[in-house]
């Protein structure tokens, strides 16, 4: 029998001793719960779960000094649960946030993500900019992956980091906001610790500061909210989002790490949060930020430690090889 499925389940989940009503009770109002957050040893009804998520994000923004009211925020939006839930939460909390959708050319997955993002923005009268990688730079993520033999998630991540900063900088935003949740950050940390990627550990923070050379401040307000909770929030708020996983990301390292962590979380509720916040509170000091000297990319002007930024190098290699193939 798995842990948590037997009669030893915590009494705080309020099983009735009469055996008639086994439902979890809301921690706040004692009404019928729709979700149990095991790491908090608490159940929540719909309204109190939504309020709980809003409080978690508000506290995160405040504790880490992410941004204040009046700063211009740009959110990277994918059409998935995390970014759309975050857009909703920040708007409810009174922040003005614009969105940017990066169309990376990944077939129906990209088209569906765009549709969900546009419908969300239109319904709430929010501003969404669309950047088309192929239209503006002449290649898609699948093409970059294929012709350079680079792992798709690596080409994708590199392109997203570049494009988000580039558009936020060009449009004069103060802060770049991303929807990385607790599971995302814990899985990345897990991978970096397993391989002792010290450079990456020194960069893993909920707030990455701006640089004079043009990197915007980047913040992760969902870092205290688990992936399952952002999905539940989206469902409870009636947010339609892309459920299907990216076809190129299936089985990637991050997802595998998440599955392993979830197996451990099932046995030890709270383990993911302890792992991540233990690092941020007590471990990160041993891996101080060590930002490289940056200059302007000779091609695009974005900050880079080399002469050409990684995105321009990828773009050059991809576009040249696509042209070579076409001329054959």
């Amino acid at each position, binding site marked *: 029998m798995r842990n948590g499925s037997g009669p030893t389940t915590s009494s705080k*989940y309020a099983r009735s001793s009469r055996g008639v009503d086994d439902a979890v009770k809301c921690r706040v109002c004692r009404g019928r*719960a729709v979700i149990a957050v095991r790491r908090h040893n608490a159940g929540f009804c719909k309204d109190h779960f939504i309020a709980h998520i809003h409080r978690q994000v508000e506290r995160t923004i405040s504790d880490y000094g992410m941004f204040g009211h009046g700063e211009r925020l740009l959110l990277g939006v994918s059409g998935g649960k995390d970014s759309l839930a975050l857009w909703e939460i920040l708007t409810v909390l009174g922040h003005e946030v614009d969105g940017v959708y990066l169309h990376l050319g990944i077939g129906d997955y990209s088209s569906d993500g765009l549709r969900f993002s546009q419908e969300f923005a239109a319904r709430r009268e929010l501003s969404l900019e669309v950047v088309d990688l192929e239209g503006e730079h002449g290649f898609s993520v699948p093409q970059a992956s294929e012709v350079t033999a680079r792992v798709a998630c690596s080409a994708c991540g590199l392109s997203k980091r570049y494009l988000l900063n580039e558009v936020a900088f060009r449009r004069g935003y103060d802060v770049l906001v991303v929807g990385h949740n607790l*599971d995302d950050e814990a899985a990345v940390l897990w991978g970096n610790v397993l391989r002792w990627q010290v450079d990456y550990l020194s960069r893993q923070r909920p707030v990455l500061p701006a640089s004079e050379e043009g990197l915007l401040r980047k913040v992760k307000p969902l870092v205290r909210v*688990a992936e*399952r909770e952002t999905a539940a929030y989206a469902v*409870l708020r009636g947010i339609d989002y892309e459920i299907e996983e990216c076809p190129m990301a299936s089985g990637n390292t991050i997802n595998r790490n998440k599955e392993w962590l979830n197996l451990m979380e099932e046995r030890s509720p709270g383990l993911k949060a302890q792992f991540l916040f233990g690092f941020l509170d007590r471990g990160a000091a041993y891996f101080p930020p060590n930002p490289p000297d940056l200059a302007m990319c000779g091609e695009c002007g974005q900050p880079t430690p080399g002469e050409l930024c990684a995105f321009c190098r990828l773009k050059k290699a991809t576009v040249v090889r696509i042209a070579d193939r076409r001329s054959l």
Partner: protein
Amino acid sequence: MKVLLHQTRREVEVRGPRTVKALLNRLDLVSESVLVIRGDQLLPDEERLRPDDFIEIRPVISGG
């Protein structure tokens, strides 16, 4: 009951489980990785299930 599994994009018939937790155990799924939905309602692990239920199991892991 009928169960829609998004992860494998298939609908299966499952007989027997009386709670969400039992259903997840039967399907060898970890509750931390999925949401279980009936109609437009989220179901916690202890929720009782009926033989005529239509249940959606939605993965929550995404890593683009």
